[in-house]
């Protein structure tokens, strides 16, 4: 045990004396979360719209004001005919045109039905979706208020509500994905580099010709990164909670447990990579290109998996982060408990076991 302790202490020395590594381990998560949280917003703000009011009555005025008084939209211009719609879009200054039919207010009071057309510039489909969503929301809201005041019976009440993220705050979406990438970075990349560095430097030879057995060597390499990953995920969670007010609806213990599970999966991946890499550079390439990059793209972190071609959807099943993100989003944002995420948890368990098994088989007790 003393041998093992001596080994783990040495590993900590290596980590804390390598400033580059420290920067990656601690600087990156903080930088990323601040970047994503503040700088990259997929929120709607001050979107230029044009209104074609062919009715020009109180109702349309009220609806128009409601839309414009939110911070989301700004009136760029009022159009006077349908013919002006196309050129208005083409000029590129507006993203949406709201068209009220003639006699809108009258139709509403008399027949209980009136038409409003929302035309969005879909050259950025994500944005367009959001714009339409927001606009519809506002209009529905108006409908509700109207209904309350006038106690009308409406046949259809469309309720569009963005659940769990009413303001469509993108940071909620990003935090689970961010966590998975950071943990992957720390656990897989760092571990694989650490082991291959020993091989490259020649000190692995000395370690092998000693009473240490391979299991102790691997464990000794892994434990410091396990602890660091834990610290990192804590930091991210705290930042998310305090700075961006991301809620943790479900059980905190479950979040912690799943994080540790994912870290173990990543660690076993890192070790597996190190057993097939002869040097640090290869380990880094495989970790970055074969692991982190696909994770960012295919795990559902940024791009929804459902929108991808079938082949990529299938491939995404092999990416551990995909399952982790589902779990974390569920637990953090929806308050799911284990009964909802047990399948995904099992998948992560299975992956850990598989990678560990392969690593042990591959680890060479000899040089050649």
């Amino acid at each position, binding site marked *: 045990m003393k*041998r093992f302790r001596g080994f783990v202490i*040495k590993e900590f*020395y*290596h980590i804390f004396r*390598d400033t580059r590594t420290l920067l990656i381990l601690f600087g990156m998560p903080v930088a990323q979360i601040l970047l994503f949280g503040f700088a990259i917003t997929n929120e709607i703000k001050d979107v230029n719209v044009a209104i074609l009011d062919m009715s020009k009555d109180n109702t349309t005025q009220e609806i128009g004001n409601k839309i414009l008084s939110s911070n989301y939209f700004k009136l760029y211009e009022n159009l006077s005919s349908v013919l002006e719609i196309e050129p208005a879009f083409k000029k590129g200054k507006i993203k949406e045109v709201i068209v009220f039919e003639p006699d809108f207010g009258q139709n509403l009071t008399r027949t209980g039905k009136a038409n409003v057309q929302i035309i969005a510039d879909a050259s950025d489909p994500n944005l367009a979706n959001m714009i339409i969503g927001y606009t519809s929301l506002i209009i529905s809201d108006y409908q509700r208020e109207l209904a309350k005041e006038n106690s009308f019976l409406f046949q259809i009440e469309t309720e569009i509500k963005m659940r769990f993220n009413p303001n469509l705050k993108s940071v909620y979406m990003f935090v689970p994905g961010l966590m998975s990438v950071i943990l992957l970075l720390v656990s897989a990349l760092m571990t694989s580099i650490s082991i291959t560095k020993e091989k490259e430097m*020649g*000190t692995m030879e*000395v370690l092998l010709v*000693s009473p240490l057995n391979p299991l102790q060597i691997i464990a000794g390499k892994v434990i410091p990164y396990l602890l660091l990953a834990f610290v990192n995920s804590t930091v991210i969670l705290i930042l998310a909670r305090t700075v961006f007010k991301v809620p943790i609806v479900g059980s905190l213990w479950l979040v912690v447990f799943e994080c540790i599970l994912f870290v173990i999966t990543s660690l076993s991946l890192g070790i597996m990579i190190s057993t097939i890499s002869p040097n640090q550079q290869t380990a880094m390439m495989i970790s970055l290109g074969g692991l982190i990059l696909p994770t960012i793209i295919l795990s559902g972190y940024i791009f929804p998996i459902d929108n991808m071609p079938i082949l990529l959807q299938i491939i995404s099943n092999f990416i551990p982060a995909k399952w982790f993100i589902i779990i974390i989003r569920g637990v953090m944002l929806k308050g799911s408990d284990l009964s909802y995420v047990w399948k995904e948890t099992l998948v992560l368990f299975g992956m850990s076991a598989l990678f560990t098994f392969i690593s042990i088989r591959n680890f060479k007790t000899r*040089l050649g």
Partner: protein
Amino acid sequence: MEAIEVKNISKSFGKTLALDNISFDVAKGEIFGFIGPDGAGKTTLFRILTTLLMPDTGRAHVLGLDVIKDYKKIRESVGYMPGRFSLYQDLTVEENLKFFAAIFGTTIQENYNLIKDIYILLEPFKKRRAGKLSGGMKQKLALCCALIHRPDLLFLDEPTTGVDPVSRNEFWEMLGHLKNEGITVLVSTPYMDEAAKCDRIALIQKGKTLGIDTLGNILKTYTKKLYSIRSDNMFTLINDLRAYNNSDTVFSFGDTLHYTDKRGEISLTELTGYLESLNHSNLEIASISPGIEDCFMEFMGIHENALEPVTETSGKK
């Protein structure tokens, strides 16, 4: 029981034959030297004996244990210094020692008397990172780390390579002291002059041993008559001698030339006369005994195969 017993070990890497049917023994308490240039097979042999590689054919026993079957026990019992990179550059001198002590289940204090003489030189630097030590200091530290658990057998693979002559001397003095502790040492080196500091040596070149014995006995196998020749103009001298049709081998040796003649023993006056006729002044010709380098080069010549061409510039005809 010998400390090391090697029988008919061969090892290839792809098409390259790194070790070709090597056999030798090392007695307990001996300092045994493997002398040969890079690529001769020294590191491969060491890795087989420390159980890091498996031989293709042959058997080897270290401290009575089989290198293939009993590798775990061997790894717990020997000390190994694999050449230039056996230290952690970002750990201090002290931390390196503590680490190696710890993984062998001992402490620095326990065997301190063994490394005391070496450590005294390192002590002023004990808080310095190993990466910032000079080459000579690194070697000393590596030796301490290999010794810290008091192994019965020490494998040192090229511990003095790239180190200046003074540090090399100091290192060999320390090895001499180890002998007094009964520790067997197997060391490899490309420096021929270090052969004199070993009890017995094996000359190795291209995977084959050229001679295994004490230095004295190996020198005795050199049967040619060897002469040392110098003059005021060494450059012309060597060319003239090579052009001389009686010359056999002509090699530079520092400030003199080592010369053998096809005729074996020659008349010094005859040679002097010949060289003087070529305008060499201050000639000094003497009959000398061979050194280890002369022997090695002789053996190389005998074992030469087609790979290394013998050209005019190598001094042979």
